[in-house]
Each structure stands twice: as structure tokens, then as C-alpha cells.
């Protein structure tokens, strides 16, 4: 299992801030996880559609589609940041 977190506008459009999911496969990457999220019903395919602007962090470090994920990881999705 991995923990998924969603922040800001992404959290609102998905109506989800946190969930636990099974890894899509062994040797999974962020890209494989995105594929499985896109296959869900409702707002999911649109939120992660190609061209949509979102960021991903794995275990609180900025990551990308190729970043490997393993059981116990914390994976966060969020829009581009706007602090300061």
C-alpha cells in the first residue's frame, strides 16, 4: 500500500485529501500510478489528463513520472505552488 495526498485545487476537484491504495504493480513508477488514477470514474481522468499542470512529490521530495514508488511511500499531487 502507498499513501496518496492531494492538495489545494486538486484536492477540491477530486474531493479527496488522502487515501491508501495498492501499488499498481511491483517496480511501479509515478507514471503507472497516474495511469491507474486516470482509469477511475468521475473527475479523475480529467484531473490527470495530459497537458494538465500538476506536480508530484514522493516521500516529500519533488519527483517526476519516472520516479519509482514502493510500499509505504507517501505520494503527493498538487498544482504549481503559489506561496510567498
Amino acid at each position, binding site marked *: 500500500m502507498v499513501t496518496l*495526498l492531494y*492538495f*489545494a*485545487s486538486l484536492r477540491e476537484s477530486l474531493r479527496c485529501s488522502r487515501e491508501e491504495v495498492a501499488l499498481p504493480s511491483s517496480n511501479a513508477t509515478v507514471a503507472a500510478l497516474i495511469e491507474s488514477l486516470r482509469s477511475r470514474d468521475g473527475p479523475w481522468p480529467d484531473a490527470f489528463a495530459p497537458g494538465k*499542470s500538476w506536480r508530484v*512529490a514522493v516521500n*516529500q*521530495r*519533488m519527483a517526476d513520472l519516472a520516479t519509482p514508488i514502493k510500499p509505504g511511500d507517501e505520494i*503527493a499531487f*498538487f*498544482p*504549481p*505552488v*503559489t*506561496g*510567498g
Partner: protein
Amino acid sequence: MPTVRVQQEDFDVGRELDTLMRDRVDVGAVASFVGLVRDLNDGHAIRGMTLEHYPGMTEKSLEDICAEAHARWKLLDSLVIHRVGSLAPGDRIVLVGVSSAHRGDAFEACEFIMDYLKTRAPFWKREDTPEGSRWVEAKASDDGAAERWKG
């Protein structure tokens, strides 16, 4: 050692900057930046805003940014305080303070830390306007400002 704090409460700029120079005589320069909530953004009247963050990662990313500033410039100390939660126009949002022997290092490092904070630290602003509330979109100009510190 950099100090990083993410908090709801306001901060006292004078008292915080004093921690960068108190009880030491090697500091020749302290540069600082204070970010405030304005009452207008992109032509919209702003009644207030709510700042969300990613507890844990936000602090870590601010620590990383300060560590990079210390690696690039000769700094004696640094400080980043960023508020979260509900803020009103005129409220302070962020304080960056940097101390060094000479002003050049302090000025540049302070600007660097703000530019990186704007593009890398996980904070999100939601503005309340008379037409309703909206998430603030990231600006390409902020990416450009961070870009110039590369290479």
C-alpha cells in the same frame, strides 16, 4: 544554522531579524524581505486569502532552499518564516532574513531564497474576492525569476 518556521501567527519583524545579529560581532550586513497581502490582484479586489501548505514537505523544502543559499554565498545565518491559514489585506505573509559579513552576499541570497520559495515550496493561495473565492495561478514570471539563478 538556518531557522525555518511555518505558522498561523503573525511575527515581529524587528525581533526576528535581531536573532540574526544578537550576541555576535562578525555580522556586517542583514538583508530582509517582507511579503504582504495586497487588496488587489490581477484586477480583482481581495478581501482576504487562505494559505494552504504540505506539513512536513514545506518545512523540508524551505530548509533545502536555505542550505543551498548557504552553499552559494558566504552567509552567517538565515531565517524564513511563512504564515498559513486566513490572512487579510495588509497582513504579513513571509519574512526572509539573511546575515553575512558583507552586503553583496546578503542581498543576493535573500532574493535567491524568495525566488526559490515562490517556485518550489509547497504553499497554495486561495483568494476571496467579491465574485467568490479562487485559487491563485502560478506565474511564469516567478519561474523566470528562479531560472536566472541556474548555472
